[in-house]
């Protein structure tokens, strides 16, 4: 097996970037009032949360695929 050398990018991690698409692009998943968080309907806090989670996912993919080169 060949050792990963400088210049190799582990782009297989890019598939992880699809998670936010699944989470955010299917309204039947989240178009609800309940469970509310501090009175805020699920529709809102879920999507705000996913804006942040998707940023974390992008950051993680960067670290995994590009950082240790």
């Amino acid at each position, binding site marked *: 097996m060949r050792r990963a050398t400088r210049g190799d990018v582990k782009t297989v991690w890019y598939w992880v970037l699809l998670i*936010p698409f699944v989470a*955010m692009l299917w*309204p039947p998943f989240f178009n609800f009032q309940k469970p509310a968080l501090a*009175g*805020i309907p699920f529709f*809102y806090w879920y999507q705000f949360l*996913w*804006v*942040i989670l*998707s940023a974390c996912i992008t950051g993680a993919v960067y670290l995994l695929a590009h950082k240790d080169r």
Partner: protein
Amino acid sequence: MIAWPAVAVFVLLFALVTVLGFWGASWRSGDLGLLDEWALAGRRFGTLVTWFLIGGDLYTAYTFIAIPALVYGQGALAFFTLPYTAIVYPIAFVFAPRFWTVAKKRGYITFADFARERYDSRMLSLAVAITGILATMPYIALQLVGIQVVIAAMGLGGSGAARDLPVIIAFVILAAYTYRGGIRAPALIAIVKDALIYVTVIVAIIVIPAKLGGLAHVLASADQLLHARPKPSGILLAPQAFTPYVTLAIGSALALFMYPHSITAVLSAASANVIRRNMAVLPAYSVLLGFMALFGYAAIVAGIHPANSSRVVPDLFARMFPPWFAGFAFAAIAIGALVPAAIMSIAAANLFTRNVYREYINHACTARDEAANAKIVSLVVKLGALIFVLFAPVSYAIDLQLLAGGWMLQTFPALIVGLYTRWFHRNALLAGWVVGMILATALPVSQHFVSVYPLHVGGVTVSAFAALYALAVNFAVAAALTLVFDGLKVPRGKDLTVPSDYRDDGSLDDSPLVYRK
């Protein structure tokens, strides 16, 4: 009535960024007689400056005004902005560093430069340039509208010359420092803009709901009020709004990083990794925009009845804040207009200079002619936007900007797909683009500038973002004609890029900038 404390704070902050704008020319100095330095600051911006720059560039004053206005008018549907501004970054994470790399190695300043060399097609390159210029012009005009509405909200509205004078002054200042310093000016101003916007929105998201009985109460009341309207909506999506919600998010996300002003900011980054890191931290602005969107509900509950939809947020701020802080917030919005307006004019100037002037008018143009020409064009572009704002109804600019996203999307097969494969024939891409542009214009226009189109197929109606329908047809035409042209052995042209041009291998520093020389 003129709110003088607001005006005073506003003028003070505006003066501050004016000084910064002019000082920008000597910041991280370079030879401003070259397009690469004037338009892209020598491609040397690090992660932090790029974050301020792209954030200040993409989240425009108009965005901060239009999204809450859409929430005010239509309720939950407008929150497509959350999935949109979340998924746009994973998308750009994949292709933007690749484009940055090939652009750096081949000396590209525009996406049309790429189309020119990748497909060996002057026509396709021209199509990309025209799309970019067409889409950018109304967007610049809307930034000036953003300045107009906050000035009006401070009571400086008046009529005739008194109404227009502040916008003209702002425009002249903006034009002068952009001419002088190029992208350095908006990059510096972006730092101030973004700081002001963050402070404004964070204060507003605490103060405004508190004054209206808490965010939960605001949402519940807004829901009742929206349902009671003649055209009812609410704070959740109706089932028939699912496909519009999703397709608006996808279509907008695919288009955003093809806009010329996005590309200009991306290319001024110092490395592909600077861009990748930014795709993970830029969503901070998306959270901010989401908060802004909630102010649309706050305006409903506060009983704001704006003269026109652009006034929702300014009127809300004027009602809820003490005058001095309203002035601060208005300055944040107005300065927020300057950054994208400057970058958009630079981007449109690059397209015209590189892909029209140099390609069709003056082949012998030297690097210095190129920069000199772009500087003049950046002035012409802004002047055009100003004249448009002063003499045409605001609704024209809004309608055109609505079409613009659809237009940009039609360059997707040539540009984004083109970064990965040259499977499509250049003439087929051009034909697909023509059909796509016609549909992306005709579908919204046929229903009085509504971007969601109800498509009837065999008894079923699917409402979706018209631009995505146009893109689907565009792809189909391009694919079918590729087979035809290849079958007829129509020449494909020579690809001037090579696979290693796309590889981010750290061997960039001494590569010459060689675009077509």
